[in-house]
């Protein structure tokens, strides 16, 4: 969907996306010529449809697409993926990790480079291998150990 500022005959640019209500997105566009702003407020069905496409919407989306390791919301560790809520049992694994081994930034970036729905089980498996081998910190070496442990 594209938005056109009719007086300027100019394509409006996406400026902000907010989720003020659980069932609605507020998507703000502005005209680069005259600065006019408008907001598209989705109903619950449109909200579901946008989410079902699996796309990121918002100013951070382009940056997130270029760098998949970065959280789209701009908040470290924040989840925008509806799938994380679907994996009830595995989200408990993520919740338990503060007491688990520490992750180096490089290893964490590697984990965050894989699809969000896979991360809880991958994290649990890697932390299990770290504990088995007595590692307190998970780095690239532990990741390699985990791959070997699981025959990859």
């Amino acid at each position: 969907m594209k938005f056109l500022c009719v007086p300027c005959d100019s394509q409006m640019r996406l400026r902000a996306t907010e989720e003020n209500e659980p069932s609605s997105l507020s998507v703000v566009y502005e005209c680069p010529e005259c600065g006019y702003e408008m907001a598209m407020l989705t109903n619950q069905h449109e909200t579901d449809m946008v989410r079902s496409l699996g796309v990121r919407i918002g100013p951070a989306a382009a940056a997130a697409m270029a760098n998949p390791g970065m959280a789209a919301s701009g908040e470290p560790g924040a989840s925008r993926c509806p799938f994380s809520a679907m994996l009830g049992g595995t989200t408990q694994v993520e919740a338990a990790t503060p007491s688990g081994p520490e992750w180096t930034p490089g290893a964490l970036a590697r984990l965050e480079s894989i699809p969000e729905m896979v991360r809880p089980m991958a994290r649990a498996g890697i932390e299990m291998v770290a504990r088995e081998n007595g590692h307190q910190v998970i780095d690239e070496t532990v990741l390699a150990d985990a791959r070997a442990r699981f025959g990859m």
Partner: protein
Amino acid sequence: MRTYSQIQGDGGSGAEQIADLEAAIARRMAGIRHVVAVGSGKGGVGKSTLTRQLGAVLAAAGKRVGILDADLNGPSQAMLHGVRNVPPLPGEEGLLLPVSREGVKVLSVGSLLAEGEALSWPSASPRHTHVWRATRELAKLAELLSAVHWGPLDVLLVDLPPGPERTAQFADFLGPQTAVVLVSIPSALARGVVARSVSALGALPNRLLGYVENMSGYACAGCGTVRPLFPESQEAAELSLPCLGRVPFDPQLAALSDDGRAITEVPEAGPIAAALAETARTLFERLEEVP
């Protein structure tokens, strides 16, 4: 006033991201020689078990094989391959998958969920999930496929969910280069449903290789002979497809499957092993033929 096609880009919405995702999937699957969707239309015909065992037989014949369990809501391939507790892991070039004892790479949501746990699909519009459910499932499958490092494969077998419309939908999703094999059993009911799948696939450019008749008789463990399992029916729909093979029912295979094992692990496995080997050989020969 300018029209839609006169404006470059889409102003920040999702169309470009979807195109990027499709390009990423194509890059990830570029090293796969043949993609084969295994569907049926009818549930309960043994499609997943057949897919798993054909993969093992092909691997035993030296082929590099991957299995994609496209049934996100009823995943079975992780269990069938004995990798239910093996998580996919981040690797140097993407997501690495669990590998079965036969060397088959397996992508199944069954590796991500505890036994008995099902995916839920939270919605902003309860009671209207039918509107977007299929779209969300395919979007999640696409997200996974865009991340997986398959490496070079001779065959990727895709275990489809049941339903004639789903068979066609997933064939369309996987692209026109994907070949399709249908699984039936010798009953009028199953054949009728599979015939509907053939009809639904007719509108797509995908190559329909043929069908496999599963549970084609009962392999007697005592005498080794194969006897009829279903009554002969004059009303069974004729499938206007080549038959790639007929695989008898064997309780031994059911036990192996529950245990996450392959028929190739069993010496002297009898008529079913011979039937699976012949079916796999025929399937691969058809794949190699230039259409």
